[in-house]
């Protein structure tokens, strides 16, 4: 039976990619291990190898096709003795369920296939009720990925200030483990884009020391999971020195990298550190959701004279959004944004939590519940004013976070609402969060461990007594 070759995933969070090139033609013999095609994402290029011996029967996705969903059949390989006539009966390697789901769009060669996974995560908030006050009317908007927005922010600040440099694992020659620093080495050279050994505690300390001497380091952690090795330097040295020195010696340093759950990487690589850092006086903590915010807030973080924890999210890196084309787009740290207006319930989230919040708001609207959705963007200082103003209007609040509940950011928000708007509440605040377990690996369990739009819908209905 002919074997289908499926679009492979380059990383745990890849949802789609481009089929750049076919290296074998239909009818050519292939051996196991032969490179038959090249695929690429905005992050990397990779070769597709044949897994079976035979003849390349049919190319299902022509080269140059963009946005091919992972697991879409891209070609068939005919075994010895089979002919093109056998193409009708096709076997899936491994009988993958996902492949079966996405097989349908591949039938129509000319249409860009859409994966169910991609459809699940909206690229950017669809229903923006209020334009960002920082953007003048009529500003041209450029569509880019969050990954590119972050890179542009760093590049712009490095052009502006020679004291800014980037340091971390694989940031230079490899172009970033998640390709966020792509191109920086080429533009700024090895003096300012510095590959470190795998030594988080050490290079975090070196970064803080360099900042104490007046430089402005951007310290990239490959992920914030590894920053636990360095957390002593972040808290004891970076956050506290200004105070301990009576205001003499602060440090302007940004610690950035992906935070929170990626996909299928299990407990040690999937943790949300929002609450950990938000707990610490002396730090500022930023966690953007949209591409525009990623750019504007990272520029602000680099310019800030205090240590800033900049929490990115791997799942969001490839998402696109509109970024204003302005010479100097800097969003002030500490301001939340109402991304969707509503009168019935306030949903508060940040970073990837916004994915669930916004999807839930769409669902709720269908049932006549108009949710107001707040993207916190900054977790410290927390914009209590925006939260309280909204809750005073709606009388109900739901918080959404990927982290755990105990001592979490949701718990803090609930406390502040109680302190500042108790008399306006028509229901207790409900927290939707990651479940109180280390992140499991199995796909079904992982899904259960994370919050979901359905849970947000349920919570919103509960506080509305519906």
């Amino acid at each position, binding site marked *: 039976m002919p074997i289908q070759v499926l679009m492979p995933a380059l990383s745990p969070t890849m949802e789609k990619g481009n089929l750049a090139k076919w290296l074998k033609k239909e009818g050519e013999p292939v051996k196991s291990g032969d490179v038959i095609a090249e695929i690429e994402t905005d992050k990397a290029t990779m070769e597709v190898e044949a897994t079976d011996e035979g003849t390349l029967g049919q190319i299902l996705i022509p080269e140059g096709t963009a946005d091919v969903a992972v697991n879409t059949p891209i070609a068939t390989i005919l075994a010895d003795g089979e002919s093109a006539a056998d193409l009708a009966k096709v076997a899936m390697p491994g009988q993958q369920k996902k492949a079966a789901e996405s097989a349908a769009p591949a039938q129509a060669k000319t249409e860009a296939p859409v994966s169910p996974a991609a459809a699940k995560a909206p690229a950017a908030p669809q229903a923006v009720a209020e334009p960002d006050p920082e953007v003048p009317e009529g500003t041209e908007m450029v569509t880019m990925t969050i990954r590119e927005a972050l890179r542009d922010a760093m590049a712009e600040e490095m052009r502006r200030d020679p004291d800014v*440099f980037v340091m971390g694992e694989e940031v230079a020659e490899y172009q970033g483990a998640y390709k966020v620093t792509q191109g920086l080495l080429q533009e700024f050279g090895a*003096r300012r884009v510095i590959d*470190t*050994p795998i*030594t988080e*505690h*050490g*290079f*975090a*300390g*070196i*970064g*803080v*020391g*360099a*900042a*104490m*001497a*007046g*430089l402005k380091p951007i310290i990239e952690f490959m992920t914030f999971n590894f920053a636990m090795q360095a957390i*002593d*330097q972040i808290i*004891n*040295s970076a956050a506290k*020195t*200004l*105070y*301990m*020195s*009576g*205001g*003499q*010696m*602060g440090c302007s340093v940004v610690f950035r990298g992906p935070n929170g759950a990626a996909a299928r990487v299990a407990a040690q690589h999937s943790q949300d550190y929002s609450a950990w850092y938000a707990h610490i*006086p*002396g730090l*500022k903590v930023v966690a953007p959701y949209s591409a525009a915010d990623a750019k504007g807030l990272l520029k602000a973080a680099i310019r800030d*004279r*205090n240590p800033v924890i900049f929490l990115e999210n791997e799942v969001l890196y490839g998402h696109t959004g509109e970024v204003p084309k302005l010479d100097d787009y800097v969003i002030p740290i500490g301001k939340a944004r109402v991304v969707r207006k509503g009168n019935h319930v306030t949903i508060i989230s940040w970073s990837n939590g916004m994915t669930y919040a916004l999807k839930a708001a769409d669902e709720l609207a269908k049932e006549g519940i108009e949710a107001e959705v707040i993207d916190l963007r900054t977790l410290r200082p927390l914009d209590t004013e925006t939260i309280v103003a909204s809750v005073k209007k709606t009388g109900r609040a739901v918080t959404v976070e990927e982290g755990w509940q105990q001592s979490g950011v949701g718990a803090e928000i609930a406390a502040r609402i109680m302190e500042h708007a108790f008399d306006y509440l028509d229901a207790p605040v409900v927290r939707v969060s990651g479940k109180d377990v280390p992140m499991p690996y199995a796909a079904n369990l992982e899904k259960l461990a994370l919050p979901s739009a359905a849970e947000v819908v349920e919570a919103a209905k509960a506080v509305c007594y519906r």
Partner: protein
Amino acid sequence: MAAPKKAVAKEVVQDKTNGSAPPEFTREQELTALRDMLLIRRFEEKAGQLYGMGAIGGFCHLYIGQEAVVVGMQMALKEGDQVITGYRDHGHMLACGMDPKGVMAELTGRRGGYSKGKGGSMHMFSKEKNFFGGHGIVGAQVSLGTGLAFANHYRGNDCVSITYFGDGAANQGQVYESFNMAGLWKLPVVYVIENNRYAMGTAVTRASAQSDFSKRGASFDIPGRQVDGMDVRAVNAAGEEAIAWCRAGKGPYILEMQTYRYRGHSMSDPAKYRTREEVEKVRQDQDPIEQVRNRLLAGKVSEQELKAIDAEVREIVNAAADFAQADPEPDVAELYTDVYR
């Protein structure tokens, strides 16, 4: 465990450098060294008294016995070189030229202290004097000091970071992470390991598989030397050599200063881990200040002149103590300042 419970008293401090006597100091150098070491000694004695009176709280780690290390090194520095250390830091601050009044007032937690009373004994800084703290987490200053050297390297100046830490900190992981990067990038940092024989109450031999700390950089190709840290001339000569190495762009250098702490680890340490005789022997045979004093007396300096220096130093320390007790506590409004800037 086979390791001895108490370190052996004999040969507490030994110079394994190269056997040769250190180069002589000029009369001026001897006088400077004497005055600076005396200032630290008298200051620390006064701090000990004030602690006993309850005027200083919390932790207070005295530097008595180790004065030659910081004074000898400081004499080898030039303007722009940075100094960073751990929590046994009063001596380093005084050697850097920080005002004894400001240091003592910080110890008493008063508004005129270097950190407005918010840092205390372990946390003082002076941008003006290039003193970068004053750090309470054992070993953390090693990465930070390497970062100061990184800044020098980045800026292309010829300044050197002098990063002090103890034999205890020398076993921390981040020390070796820092050694690796300093060696890899040829950063201008002199790692001064003040081996005072005890990490709190644990003798070096009970804590270190390799107790020759000058070899601790071997894996990273960092040269090292053991130095008689009780002889200010030996310290100075080794410091000059190490600093010249760094300034020439050859990368980091390790100096193991073999020294001794007369007092307990902190004020609350009963020092049961060593004998009174061991301490007395070092004081009698190797005291860094007595060594200089004896050389000066053997030369052309009179007892009278030395007494004048002593009186001058006591005057400075008394003035610092008076200031530190009379200065008001910080304004309550200071509670919320300096968290952000």
